[in-house]
């Protein structure tokens, strides 16, 4: 394994890890903001309890997203210096803007929200969490603009003398059609994740701690489950458009998603395949006729280009080489992404059914015990869907780091040896592993603890001596 392979593994590890926390942050920021808004509007204490309870889980998760995010910004320069030189004129701008416009908002207003319960007027305090929530979306939008440029480079020219891509139209980069559809898809994925987590924790309490704060948990379960369901609808709609955009700008990725070697019209979509996916006849494949044509083109008899034809086309255009991504990985991650997401939404539907019209699920029934299992799976399924989705997106772009412009093999840092990359990979893997144990431990502890008591503390004699509403 050479330094580039190691650097790719490292990017995969730290980025997938980082993106476990990001969607939870985005989704839960809005749900917590919603709970707090409900409290400010209605004065019903259950919403305050939910705000504080889920707010705590949100913060435990947020810390991990922040610290693993620093690595993301540094590693382009550390491990991918040739990439950075090539794309910096274009790719750097959204990153800098993400920091200036979004990170400052998120971190500053989150500090105000955490510590400001007794320092800020109620409505201004509420505004802080909404600013944080929109900050997370802004942040996602900028980084997705940057990523979309790697999938579909637009608004640039190549300066051969400097050996780099140069920006010619920033508006084209911001309105890249891949970005415009990837942003809503990713945000919807974040809501699937946040909603699933909120619902799952609430259902666990309804089942395992019956009779305690039932009203609060019922509301949380319903809000979380509805969020998950609506998010799944949004994911399907945006994913559908994404497939068509992908067919247009990265046809090889679409062909790889189906392991479709020869151009077909109409093309079927296989739910799963038993076999090697190397183009030889599969042992068995469960196929839905014409569906891939619909996913790729919007018509049931559209033509979908196959891997072999695209390979020949790319060789003619870009010179000899292997232009196929890792087919088994793209094939399976694409299916798993859809499957995990769909399963999450089915569990959410079940949660709504079990809590309909004032009903409370009972753990002593078989349905209740099954639902408990569902509740345990519900927070994990969206995380798996997010991860497989991104692995598909990034692995499906290979061998390119910038589609059609720069190959991944050319992008790593020449001055960084394998030893350095191995060192950092070991450091990050061990550290991230240990932090995962700590983080999950804390999440479980605080999730099990349940909603807090929100009766106001006894007042001290003077304002000066009153203890802080919150302190580290």
């Amino acid at each position, binding site marked *: 394994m050479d330094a580039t392979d190691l650097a790719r593994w490292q990017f995969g590890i730290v980025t997938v890890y980082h993106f476990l926390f990001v969607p939870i942050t985005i989704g839960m920021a809005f749900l917590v903001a919603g709970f707090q808004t409900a409290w400010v509007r209605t004065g019903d204490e259950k919403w305050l309890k939910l705000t504080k309870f889920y707010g705590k889980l949100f913060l435990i998760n947020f810390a991990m997203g922040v*610290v693993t995010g620093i690595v993301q910004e540094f590693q382009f*320069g550390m491990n991918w210096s040739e990439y950075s030189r090539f794309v910096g*004129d274009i790719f750097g701008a959204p990153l800098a803007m993400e920091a200036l416009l979004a*990170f400052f908002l998120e971190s500053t207003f989150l500090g105000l929200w955490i510590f400001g319960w007794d320092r800020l007027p109620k409505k201004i305090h509420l505004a802080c969490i909404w600013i944080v929530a929109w900050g997370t979306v802004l942040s996602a939008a900028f980084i997705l603009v940057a990523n979309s440029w790697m999938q579909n480079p637009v608004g640039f020219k190549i300066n051969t003398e400097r050996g780099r891509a140069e*920006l010619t139209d*920033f508006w084209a980069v911001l309105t890249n059609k891949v970005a415009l559809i990837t942003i809503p898809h990713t945000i919807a994925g974040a809501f699937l994740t946040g909603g699933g987590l909120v619902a799952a924790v609430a259902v666990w309490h309804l089942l395992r701690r019956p009779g305690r704060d039932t009203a609060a948990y019922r509301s949380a379960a319903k809000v979380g489950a509805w969020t998950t369901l609506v998010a799944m609808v949004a994911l399907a709609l945006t994913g559908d458009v994404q497939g068509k955009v992908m067919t247009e700008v990265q046809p090889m990725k679409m062909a790889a998603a189906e392991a479709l070697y020869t151009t077909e019209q109409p093309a079927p979509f296989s739910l799963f395949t038993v076999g090697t996916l190397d183009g030889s006849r599969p042992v068995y494949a469960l196929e839905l006729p014409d569906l891939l044509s619909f996913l790729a083109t919007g018509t049931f008899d559209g033509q979908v280009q196959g891997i072999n034809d695209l390979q020949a086309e790319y060789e003619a255009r870009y010179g000899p080489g292997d232009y196929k991504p890792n087919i088994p990985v793209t094939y399976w991650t694409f299916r798993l992404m859809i499957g995990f997401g769909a399963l999450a939404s089915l569990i959410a539907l079940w949660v709504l059914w079990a809590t309909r019209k004032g009903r409370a699920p009972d753990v002593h029934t078989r349905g209740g015990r099954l639902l408990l299992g569902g509740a345990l799976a519900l927070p994990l399924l969206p995380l798996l869907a997010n991860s497989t989705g991104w692995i598909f997106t990034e692995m499906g772009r290979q061998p390119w780091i910038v589609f059609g412009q720069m190959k991944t093999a050319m992008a790593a840092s020449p001055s*960084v040896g394998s030893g350095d990359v191995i060192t950092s990979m070991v450091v990050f893997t061990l550290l991230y592993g240990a932090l995962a144990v700590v983080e999950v431990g804390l999440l479980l502890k605080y999730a099990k*603890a349940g909603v807090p008591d929100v009766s106001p503390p006894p007042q001290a004699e003077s304002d000066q001596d009153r203890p802080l509403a919150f302190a580290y």
Partner: protein
Amino acid sequence: MPLHTVWFLLIAVLFTGYFVLEGFDFGVGMLLPVLGRDDRERRVVINTIGPVWDGNEVWILTAGGAMFAAFPEWYATLFSGFYLPLLLILLALILRGVAFEYRGKRDDAVWKRRFDWCIVFGSVVPAFLWGVAFANIVRGVPLDADHQYTGNLFTLLNPYALLGGLTTLLLFLTHGAIFIALKTVGDIRQRANTLASRVGVAAALVAVVFLVWTVARHSTPLSVTFAVLAALCLVGGLIANRMPSRTDPQGRREGWAFTGTAAAIAFAVAALFATLYPDVLPSTVDPATNSLTVANASSTPYTLKIMTWVALVFTPIVLLYQGWTYWVFRKRIGTHHIPEPAPAPAHTEA
């Protein structure tokens, strides 16, 4: 003024902001076991920066992003060349950030002690290594004709750079002690003031040697002016640190002392950038051809123009709301302000 020079200035401003703000965060972190003699005191120390440390840290992310956008060659060469020190900085910042958030989440002395050490490690390491890194940037490193770094880890550990690291370490320590004095009441405040006086003298001596060495390498009227101002501000801050407060006999002139150390750090960073210009990363090998300069490392004027507009509009807004945060949390805190640890979640059956 050419746009690449504007961006050189803006990046200098971003790093100045970072070192002034996160400088006291690092100092506070390093002093955690020194000034916090029991858990309640340690919580006072941490909570002096509780609401603001994360926002302060964004300055480095913005500086890094701006470097990537405005000077991709600088970003690429520097971050790949300074690989292992940056890895250590990342490790430190990760541990520190998590520790602030997680330390109080279990009522368990061992748990807390471990995270206290994460905070100390996470503050000492970057406080030292940022100085090493910036001294090396000013001093220059071996680059080849393709602007690739050709040295190794030990190239970076030269005496000038190590002195730079010691300078930032001591400056941030002093800055942090004065910040704690500025933000607390009672016993901690007095001990922080006393400590600041002692560490401050060492910081001043080391900083002066480092600044003299810096301007001796490559002096311009501007860099000399900044270096002198840095030294004067630091001395002024330390004098204020010894003067009794007019309102509170227990305290000293902490506001002025803090202004002094903040200005000293700002002018020291300015002196480094003034020494550096027009290079962004000089090469010690064939400097005339291999050095990275504002001209050969920068992005296109079109990118810089867009970035300039964005920076001009949004930087003042950021400064406004960050400043507002400091206003909201302006009150001093003491041990009596620290709430009891949240009652440990009652663990009934699971």
